[in-house]
């Protein structure tokens, strides 16, 4: 199907042919022809954000909650540079995005023209790939290739920079063609390695599944296969922050999240296991803690679609390069064909050991009748929302870790958080993207007041599109995680870690035509949360919580999994000078 059309029309046509229904963007001089085409059609909804960073995070929320690529349209220069944080966030968390940027006309590139920036140069290290399209004839093929690259293999953000004269000129439009790309990452794992892993599973005495965002990215089928394998073998399973939901929190083999603020039983199981099966995780430093003391006595298997993840941080014994879904399918096949064996006796002992660790009750905290403890707020939120069709986004900090600890996720794609980059300001726009994709769902952004202020301008977007996103702000008037580190590492000198001059969040909500709820008494909390859930429209919930609560458990910097802190009493002088330079 070849047709003559303008570059601008091609952009819209290509998006339609790629099945795009929603675009998050902000217009400007260098993308006006594309905006003109958007004006002339009704198939693609355009969501006008209030800042380009918001557009990218919204697209991330859309992508993570649907499994489809998110699409962003912004202008040249500042439009593109404002998108950089979102691109980097998506790169580190492997989120498929297609970002279209306008550019000054080709004949002005390099002249320091108005709103000119070297967009492909700036975004080269923060995209999976990017393109500057200099000819209208190449535009359609580039957009189709961009969708392929964003979604194939390890997903990631891609960017297409389109000069304004390319948008005006006419050229030949071609629809998507399969197999036009040379980029086809391997999805099937090596059978020999898979068999070796199955043999290890059959005999292991203390095995553990360590799962990550790769399971979610591989699609719903991968999570299903994982559940089948876990439940059939009875091997305990933990997840990274990015992997929450790949195995149900109510499942009997669930250990909870692992890592720096992970659960005691999960981290102890990682430390003491004799077989670690990493599925779609990447041995991030939040997970491993001190490398030379990381799970010292285990055989390690690593399933990852990205060969560069293997042996990057931790040397593994059984590397399997492939898509999680495909590899799990083969593992199940081989395991079943060899007679579904596990070391039942040893496994029972291992499960008993884990049950002992569970008794430590690592998430215990001292509740209060006077002030709302943040943990309590999240427990109540969990209790009052868990039956709902619920999606949760978060900002970054203590509230994020508490949300990961206290909220339970039964399914993949229900939990959207900035893991790798740790972007404060992610959660609010992400909740907008999620709500766009799931108009009838209950979408809650668990936030801290400091993070939330970073992209608060998106209240305008939420109000304009009547998106009933619930902003559940745990307001401690502090940069809680920074404050916690200053307490532990910097002699309780709380340099610039408090939130001065905070707005009245109820009035702020009302100023945007939304609902504001203030709650400071634990006795009122349930009613206030129910009021938030039942309100049909955007809500800012200002939950005034204990100001000096620390987030535990915690593996201090430079320590091993089995050296984690469980509460306040253990925090004095725990981080040595070597640990204090680590972040």
């Amino acid at each position: 199907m070849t047709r003559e059309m303008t570059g601008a029309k091609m952009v819209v046509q290509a998006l339609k042919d790629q099945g795009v229904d929603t675009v998050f963007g902000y217009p400007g001089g260098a993308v006006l022809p594309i905006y003109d085409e958007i004006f002339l059609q009704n198939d693609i909804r355009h969501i006008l954000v209030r800042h380009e960073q918001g557009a990218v995070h919204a697209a991330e929320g859309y992508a993570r909650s649907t499994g489809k690529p998110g699409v962003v349209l912004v202008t040249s220069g500042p439009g593109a540079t404002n998108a950089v944080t979102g691109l980097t966030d998506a790169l580190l968390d492997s989120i498929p995005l297609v970002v279209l940027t306008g550019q000054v006309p080709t004949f002005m590139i390099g002249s320091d023209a108005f709103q000119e920036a070297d967009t492909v140069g700036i975004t080269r290290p923060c995209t999976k790939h990017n393109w500057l399209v200099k000819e209208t004839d190449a535009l359609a093929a580039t957009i189709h290739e961009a969708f392929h690259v964003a979604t194939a293999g390890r997903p990631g953000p891609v960017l297409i920079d389109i000069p304004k004269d390319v948008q005006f000129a006419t050229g030949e439009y071609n629809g998507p063609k399969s197999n036009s790309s040379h980029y086809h990452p391997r999805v099937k794992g090596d059978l020999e390695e898979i068999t070796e892993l199955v043999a290890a599973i059959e005999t292991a005495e203390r095995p553990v599944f360590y799962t990550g965002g790769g399971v979610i990215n591989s699609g719903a089928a991968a999570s299903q296969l994982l559940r089948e394998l876990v439940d059939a073998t009875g091997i305990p399973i933990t997840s990274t922050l990015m992997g929450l939901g790949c195995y149900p929190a109510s499942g009997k083999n669930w250990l909870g999240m692992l890592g720096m603020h992970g659960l005691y039983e999960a981290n102890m199981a990682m430390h003491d296991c004799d077989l670690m099966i990493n599925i779609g995780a990447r041995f991030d430093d939040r997970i491993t803690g001190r490398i030379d003391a990381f799970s010292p006595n285990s055989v390690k298997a690593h399933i990852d679609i990205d060969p560069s993840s293997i042996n990057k941080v931790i040397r593994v014994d059984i590397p399997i390069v492939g898509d999680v879904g495909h590899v799990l399918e083969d593992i199940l096949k081989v395991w079943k064909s060899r007679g579904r064996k596990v070391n039942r006796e040893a496994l029972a002992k291992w499960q008993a050991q884990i049950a002992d660790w569970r008794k430590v009750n690592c998430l215990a905290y001292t509740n209060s009748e006077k002030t709302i403890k943040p943990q309590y707020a999240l427990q109540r939120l969990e209790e009052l929302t868990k039956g709902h069709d619920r999606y949760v986004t978060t900002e970054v900090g203590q509230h994020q870790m508490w949300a990961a600890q206290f909220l339970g996720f039964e399914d993949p794609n229900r939990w959207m958080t900035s893991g790798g980059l740790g972007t404060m300001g992610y959660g609010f726009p992400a909740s907008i993207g999620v709500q766009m994709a799931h108009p009838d769902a209950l979408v809650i952004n668990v936030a801290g007041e400091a993070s939330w202020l970073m992209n608060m301008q998106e209240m305008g977007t939420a109000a304009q599109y009547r998106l009933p996103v619930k902003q559940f702000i745990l307001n401690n008037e502090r940069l809680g995680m920074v404050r916690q580190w200053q307490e532990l590492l910097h002699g309780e000198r709380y340099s610039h870690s408090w939130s001065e001059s905070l707005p009245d969040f109820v009035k702020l909500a009302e100023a945007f035509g939304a609902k504001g709820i203030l709650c400071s008494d634990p006795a009122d909390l349930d009613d206030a949360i129910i009021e938030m859930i039942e309100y049909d429209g955007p809500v800012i919930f200002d939950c005034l919580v204990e100001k000096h609560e620390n987030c535990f458990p915690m593996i201090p910097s430079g320590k091993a999994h089995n050296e984690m802190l469980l509460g306040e009493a253990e925090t004095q002088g725990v981080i040595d000078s070597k640990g204090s330079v680590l972040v």
Partner: protein
Amino acid sequence: MSALHIKKGSTSHSAYNLRPNFSDVQERHTIAVLVENEPGVLARVIGLFSGRGYNIESLTVAEVDHTGHLSRITIVTTGTPQVIEQIKAQLGRIIPVHEVHDLTVEGPAVERELAILKVVGDGDKRVEALRLADIFRANVVDSTLGSFIFEITGAPDKIDAFAELMRPLGLAEIARTGVAALLRGE
């Protein structure tokens, strides 16, 4: 007081730069990368090395297949075995990269570099420079009464040796291409 004692030569990009498990021996590898000849592809390769803290000892690039739009980049790098593995895996992730070959592992390979050296001098030094050039099979490509420009081809250490010998004889300038390399045999 420096709190952290990062081992010299450590190239981890993780904050937890405390990796005892891998060999610390620095190896020199020659890597050939076949890439789509498109704008920015060299920047991607170089950006990968600078962004992740890898070494580049030399790098050459030129189009080798005009119809197929392919360029060949030859990189000489040093690092621990684990870093070398990472470099190859990271190169393989770049979308326009078609093939990555570690010629040091897949070898033996022929490695050649071309250099031109300007040697300024007169009298005995000039005669000696010419005599040594002959031994090294260097050609004279420019000559004045007070200078020569020699052209020499060979493995990098041969060029190093020649340059060392020319230094006391009036070496004024040197330009080197970096290594080009191919696997031996079929």
